[in-house]
């Protein structure tokens, strides 16, 4: 489905699906796309469906609508377009676009029997050899062809350099390295346009003449040249010998030397993202030897091409970073909202319990005081569990292994849950294996993990009238793994839901569930090198099979994980 995804502005991270024929955009809350941006008009614009596509229409807004930095009144949208409304920047993503490219269903991979399969390989070229094709210069080749080959090789290497990084600083360093490898520049600098201030900020600089330990030479760049490049969107080649009146006299040139420079815009899809500047200095001695004009128009053209490639890569990287940041903010917002909701429910419980205690004290009714206290106590436990689950989920940790009796550990959980099971009118039974030696386990973590699974099992068959939960332990025949099976006769879990129950904040228990219990349990078991499997039949119940590697106290774990360990 087509959508607008906010990558910049107060609504960063929000995605608006364009479900209706006409989607209104504005500051008022009756807009489908409501933007919390004071530079957005109350009813700013509309996205209208037009055939297979969408059109953005400005509703005579105060600050206008921009598509890819160009102000529009009405503009068809293409996937990837940047829609700027006020200070809010959104990316338009089209739905399924009509394309002349068909599905691959008409392609068959056939065997030798087919008539078309009789082709033979005439020539094979490896990837490495293919990459070198552009750099091979034949001595008999014309200078034009040799130069063209050389340029293509540079562009090929530029494309490679910018194609596989998501770090802008790293990308700019690569570009600078490449330029310095190719051209005889003494100094260079890449500056990017700051999105907020629109000022040029130097990001990378390089000075070939800089010696280690030598005081750093400041690179001064003419603002006039920079302004010209930005305003005219043109690359320039300059030489102070030609432009400055001071150098009119040949004698002066010989005395002072000549500085040449190339400054090119980094022209991206949506505008200029920065400039690349390089310069070189020719000493008086070299001038006498007629070594001037180190930079040619050919250099300028290639610099423009390189800068364009770099700009596209910078835009892609910025776009990706903005998307990641926006997704991260959205996830964080969802996390905070979910956790706040749980805390709010717990707070509600504590308030209820406190109110009952107050009522009981006023009326000198100890039964009501006790009832209130039980509610407060239960909610204290809930908040404690929530905090522990959050802590467990939020960081990776190696289990603190110690010789432990799994039967005893599981019995503790069952005993702890017996009151809850009784309240829920669920029969909770323990069926431990008769002989269980000690194994290396983290009893504290596993207690939490098993408790979560047993709690879920009880909740699953609460109010069913004949709810039953059986918790059993076993040791595999080859003594390589331990199992704890938590079986309930509740309503079972739908096949689709089974795939989601280990996802964080996915709860089937409504307000009672935090959506953290099972993900935390799974994490703990996996940190032990084990896992949790689920078998469930709707209407009949579920079996949670919790497995652990059986590591005897004498065996030492070879690495951070216990996966694959054998019992000796």
């Amino acid at each position, binding site marked *: 489905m087509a959508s607008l995804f906010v990558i910049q502005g107060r609504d960063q991270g929000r995605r608006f699906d364009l479900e209706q024929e006409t989607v209104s955009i504005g500051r008022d809350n009756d807009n489908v796309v409501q933007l919390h941006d004071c530079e957005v008009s109350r009813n700013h614009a509309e996205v209208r469906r037009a055939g297979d596509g969408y059109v953005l229409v400005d509703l005579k807004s105060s600050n206008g609508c921009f598509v890819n930095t160009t102000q529009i009144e009405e503009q068809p949208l293409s996937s990837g377009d940047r829609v700027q409304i006020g200070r809010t920047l959104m990316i338009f993503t089209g739905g399924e676009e009509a394309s002349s490219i068909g599905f691959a269903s008409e392609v068959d991979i056939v065997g030798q029997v087919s008539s078309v399969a009789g082709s033979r390989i005439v020539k094979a070229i490896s990837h490495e050899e293919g990459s070198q094709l552009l750099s091979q210069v034949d001595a008999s080749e014309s200078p034009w062809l040799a130069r063209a080959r050389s340029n293509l090789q540079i562009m090929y290497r530029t494309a490679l350099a910018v194609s596989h990084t998501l770090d802008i600083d790293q990308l700019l360093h690569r570009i600078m390295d490449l330029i310095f490898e190719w051209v005889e520049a003494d100094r260079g600098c890449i500056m990017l346009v700051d999105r907020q201030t629109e000022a040029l900020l130097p990001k990378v600089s390089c000075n070939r003449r800089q010696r280690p330990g030598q005081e750093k030479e400041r690179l001064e760049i003419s603002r006039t040249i920079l302004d010209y490049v930005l305003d005219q969107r043109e690359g320039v080649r300059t030489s102070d010998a030609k432009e400055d009146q001071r150098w009119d006299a040949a004698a002066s040139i010989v005395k002072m030397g000549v500085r040449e420079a190339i400054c090119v815009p980094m022209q991206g899809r949506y505008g200029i993202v920065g400039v690349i500047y390089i310069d070189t200095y020719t000493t008086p001695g070299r001038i006498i030897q007629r070594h001037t004009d180190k930079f040619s128009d050919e250099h300028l053209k290639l610099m423009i091409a390189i800068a364009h490639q770099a700009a596209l890569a910078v835009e892609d990287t910025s776009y990706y970073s903005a998307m990641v940041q926006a997704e991260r903010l959205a996830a964080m917002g969802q996390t905070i909202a979910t956790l706040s909701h749980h805390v709010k429910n717990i707070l509600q*419980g504590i*308030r*209820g319990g406190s*109110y009952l205690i107050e009522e009981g004290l006023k009326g000198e009714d100890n039964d009501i005081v006790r009832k209130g206290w039980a509610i407060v106590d*239960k909610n204290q436990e809930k908040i404690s569990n929530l905090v522990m689950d959050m802590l467990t989920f939020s960081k990776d940790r190696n289990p603190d292994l110690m010789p432990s009796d799994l039967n005893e550990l599981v019995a503790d959980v069952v005993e702890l849950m017996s009151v809850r099971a009784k309240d829920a009118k669920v029969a909770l039974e323990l069926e431990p294996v008769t002989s269980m030696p000690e194994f290396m386990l983290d009893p504290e973590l596993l207690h939490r993990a098993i408790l979560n699974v047993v709690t879920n099992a009880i909740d699953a068959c609460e109010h069913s009238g004949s709810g039953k939960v059986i918790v059993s332990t076993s040791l595999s025949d080859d003594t390589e793994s331990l199992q704890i099976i938590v079986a309930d006769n509740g309503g079972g879990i739908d096949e689709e839901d089974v795939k989601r129950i280990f996802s964080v904040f996915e709860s089937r228990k409504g*307000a009672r569930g935090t959506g953290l219990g099972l993900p935390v349990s799974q994490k703990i078991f996996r940190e032990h090198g084990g896992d949790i499997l689920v078998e469930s039949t709707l209407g009949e119940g579920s079996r949670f099979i919790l497995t652990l590697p059986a590591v005897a106290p004498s065996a030492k774990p070879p690495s951070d994980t216990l996966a694959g360990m054998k019992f000796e």
Partner: protein
Amino acid sequence: MAEGRTFGQRADQDDWPSRRRFPTFSSATHGGARLTQLSPETPRSRSVLIVDPSDESREVLRTVLERRGVSILEARRGAEGLKILQNQHPDVTVVDLEADQDGSGSLVIAYHNASASEETSLVMLGRVSAAPTSRDGSQVISKPYHYGPLIRTIEQLLERH
């Protein structure tokens, strides 16, 4: 559920007296719903339907309101509570909006409509973004709420009946 109560009569049976008559039974349940009633000689008490998925919240309201002589009907889910509302005609209905299982907001509309036709005052707990504006007498209390003001609100609404 508190012990010492008797359960047996389904709240959706027709033998429950209309809301303006005097109740004659000791208690009733309907699925997760429960009604505590008064003895035949007691004048008719006011009744409150509590629709809330939280056992604790229902327990607190039930305990406090029963001490004030109010009969309590309970439901865990929105649809279940709606049936009780239509069959038992409580004076006041307290609905936690988390009882809306599908989260579509249809619960709000359904309770508004039912409370209007059944002449019950409605108290909604939670956040309502699209409450109908044509009905009066309904109240919305944001969560987390304090029980003192909620109880006072319920008492005020009961006094109107």
